[in-house]
């Protein structure tokens, strides 16, 4: 008789509801007639994400203290619950964007199944409390994303992007796995807090393991110099997938990175703080400079996501309560901004039938005023301008860096923001300052599709992006409660 551990099913409810939705979607793929399949699948996927969202909110409310589950392999705490809320929310909005995409009818249900499965993987990943669950979660959502990137085989570059992502992502996973093996080999422990307690802080093998774990997580959060897959994968993937990757993957990777570093490696703080600060500088520099010369809007946004990884890594490098709070807060507007920006790109893409560049955005702001104003807001939000949460997020990150005495990181961040003004405002300029007639753009046929659901999704993103500027206090309270879960 095998002794079964006690399982707190409620703590796993966000993952499980998404997993359930994925299973249901596979049924939909087989049993629902073709005509209704797309709509049904989208509905089930949306319902799955919303259920997970609700469960995560309740979980966040009902988890005052950190609890370790199932032989210390999972955490139940507010740090992960808050991230799950954001991941599930991003997924739900990404489903809204996916409906209007031209999926081949045969695979539409599988698409949503993969999306929910990847979401389940992320929800699992953020709860990871030992090296096994960490790696399991990472692979779980990564494999989903590899396939999602390449799912639209009619799209030029989609397969190529998927392959690139697979190869580079596999290197990242392997690095993480090797690093975990070294850490385990040195300490003989799997769970995060026991590794810290084992105290091999200055052992070379242990430190090599730490470095490889950082690199592995760096790949997933697309921090430079581990970002090479980002522009290609973001550009090649179907745009709704890109929007989900840009927001949810980053949330998962950074939240986990913060936890792994603070819980598992507290004695080497002086080392990884500087390493992370270095990665932050590299991401800020590389992301912003590379974005300057791009013409393809998805690539610009991809490099912008690299630079935002840099901003959030500043909060990780600070490694204090304020930094943890700053990261959790920053992720709220950031997720909304990336989702929304890619949704607007998707709308233009569907209208023109070609990849969106700065040239063929011309006149977009006048032709579709709502999406134009929304895109404008998102760009200003990325830039960190007032009236969007991006401003407060940046401010908090700088405050965290200042709190730790990393004033030079503030300088780097400020210079990076100056540079980024060029390309973010360049998108506004492309949309408003030129007429589409100047460039003789012809829509691929008829008036633009109405895309009610996409507009709803963009509205949600807009409300979150602007609302997080005004409602700072309640959001910070939640982020503060989440940050208390970490031993800082």
């Amino acid at each position, binding site marked *: 008789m095998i002794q079964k551990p006690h399982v707190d099913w409620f703590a796993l409810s966000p993952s499980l509801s998404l997993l359930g939705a994925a299973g249901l979607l596979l049924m939909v793929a087989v049993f629902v007639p073709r005509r209704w399949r797309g709509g049904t699948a989208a509905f089930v996927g949306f319902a799955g994400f919303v259920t997970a969202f609700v469960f995560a909110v309740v979980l966040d409310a009902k988890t005052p203290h950190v609890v370790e589950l199932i032989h210390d392999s999972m955490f139940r705490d507010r740090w992960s619950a808050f991230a799950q809320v954001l991941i599930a929310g991003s997924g739900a909005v990404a489903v809204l964007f996916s409906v209007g995409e031209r999926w081949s009818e045969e695979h539409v249900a599988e698409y949503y199944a993969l999306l929910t499965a990847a979401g389940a993987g992320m929800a699992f990943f953020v709860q990871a409390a030992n090296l096994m669950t960490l790696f399991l979660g990472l692979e779980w959502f990564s494999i989903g994303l590899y396939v999602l990137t390449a799912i639209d085989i009619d799209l030029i570059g989609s397969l190529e992007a998927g392959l690139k992502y697979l190869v580079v992502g596999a290197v990242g996973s392997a690095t993480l796995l090797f690093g975990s093996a070294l850490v385990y080999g040195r300490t003989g422990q799997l769970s995060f807090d026991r590794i810290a307690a084992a105290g091999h802080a200055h052992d070379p093998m242990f430190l090599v393991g730490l470095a490889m774990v950082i690199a592995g997580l760096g790949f997933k959060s697309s921090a430079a110099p581990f970002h090479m897959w980002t522009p290609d994968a973001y550009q090649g993937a179907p745009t709704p997938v890109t929007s989900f990757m840009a927001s949810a993957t980053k949330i998962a990777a950074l939240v986990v990175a913060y936890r792994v570093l603070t819980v598992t490696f507290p004695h080497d703080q002086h080392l990884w703080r500087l390493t992370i600060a270095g990665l932050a500088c590299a991401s800020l520099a590389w992301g912003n400079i590379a974005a300057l010369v791009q013409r393809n809007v998805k690539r610009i946004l991809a490099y912008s996501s690299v630079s935002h990884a840099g901003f959030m890594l500043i909060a990780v490098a600070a490694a204090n309560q304020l930094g943890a709070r700053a990261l959790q807060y920053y992720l709220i507007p950031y997720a909304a901004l990336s989702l929304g920006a890619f949704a607007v790109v998707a709308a233009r893409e569907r209208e023109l039938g070609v990849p969106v560049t700065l040239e063929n955005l011309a006149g977009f702001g006048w032709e579709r005023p709502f999406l134009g104003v929304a895109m404008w807001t998102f760009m200003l939000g990325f830039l960190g301008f*007032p009236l969007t949460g991006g*401003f407060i997020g940046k401010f908090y990150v*700088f405050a965290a860096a200042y*709190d730790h005495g990393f004033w030079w990181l503030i300088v780097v961040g400020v210079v990076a923001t100056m540079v980024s003004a060029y390309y973010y405002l360049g998108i506004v*300029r492309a949309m*408003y300052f030129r007429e589409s007639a100047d460039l003789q753009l012809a829509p691929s046929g008829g008036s633009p599709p109405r895309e009610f659901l996409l507009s709803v999704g963009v509205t949600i993103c807009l409300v979150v992006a602007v609302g997080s500027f005004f409602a700072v206090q309640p959001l910070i309270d939640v982020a503060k409660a989440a940050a208390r879960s970490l031993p800082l």
Partner: protein
Amino acid sequence: MNAWLTTILLLVPFGGALLVAIAPLPGYWLGSLATLTSLIEVGFWITSAGRFHFGNPSLQLSQQASWFKDLHVSYHVGQYAFSVWLVGMTVVVMAACTIYGWWVGRTRPRLYFSLMLLLTAAIVGVFTAQDLLLFYAFFEAMLIPLYVLIGVWGGAGRMRATLTFVVYTVVGSLLMLAAVVAYGLHEHTFDLTQLPQRSSTWLFLGFVIAFAIKAPLFPFHGWLPDAYREAPAEVSAILSGVVSKAGLYGLLRIAIPKFPTVANDWRVVLLVLASISLVYGSLLAFRAPDFRGVVMYSSLAQSGLIVLGLFAFNDLGFDGAVLQMVNHALISSSLFLLAGMVERRTSTGELRLLGGMARGRPLLATVIMTTGIIALAVPLSSSFAGEFLILAGVFQQHWAWAVVGATGIVLAAMYMLRAISAVLHEEVGSAVPDSALDLRLGELAVVVPLVLCLVGLSAWPNLVSGHAKPPAPGWTAYAPLVSNKATK
């Protein structure tokens, strides 16, 4: 009610902007809605000025609400005596410019008018914010509407103009952001009324460079020629009339009172830069080939003069600077609007193509003449009063500064008379058609109130200069420094 007045001054244009953005009305009615809003704003300003106790030097009409507690940031607005005048000049000039935009029938009225109202809200916010972060947010928020107003409705070179404008301003404001973060977090408050004085040169420079770019002062004025020439006339009027005052206000409200010792150390540098701006700007205005060129370089000169007054570090200079800010806002916005009116008739602003416009156009001649005469500080005019106070104040620092200031006034007479005669008198210019009309009723309705304000101030300059007293604790802090110097 009194506590709400300042908030109402912010909410009226902000609400008006939202209303214009979504109201299902045709373009002409949007313009009238915006006009109505801007006039209501003027009405509320008159109310607030009426309820303000000018004998009382403390903060009045103030309101405070916590924004986010952990970093001690709050929504705190209120007015000092000088802020009342600066807000007043803002709402009056903004109303005139909005009406002008309505009268000339700007294309794409929905975006145009909502941006004008948004800009009004942002500028009023800059002058009334009593929290450093809130001040910064409004300061940044001014940039967005201006960027689009120049970029969409500007002249042929607008792309270049917006780029330089944005590069300069963003560099300045982000330096300020770094200073804001470091200053506020160090003091554990962002409340301007409570922030203690500091003696950090870096912080001082971070603020001063941002303000010097906005004002502009001599080496930081590179954005000025392109932006002022390419912007639509009424936007140039706003830029030189009120937006530049935001920079000067920053010196007056933050740089000097919060860093008195550093300001004293850097006094000579700033006085030299101000003198250069004054003389160099005047010379450029004298050589400028077009009407707008004269007005815009005279703005540079006037900024220099006002900075001379501020860095005189005494009440005379302070009163003169505040009076001159109000004067110059009214003068320069009317001159830019007049330049726009001339350009509409002749489709050029080049002085060599203009001339002889006085003949048969008595109203145009009278209005340009009156404004010009007041601009060149003829005795009995309000700008004479302002400049006299400034010179008297700066004379107490050293007689040399007063000599420079007086030179500037002589040069002002030269460039202004040159411009007036080149437009109104001399031979009829080749670009002036006989059919060019005199000022129409709509144009008079815009300019005449501004000129009447100037005439009124000429009759009673003490209305502003005698009612602009700085509150005792913050501003007189530098008075002992000066008197110490005198006793040595």
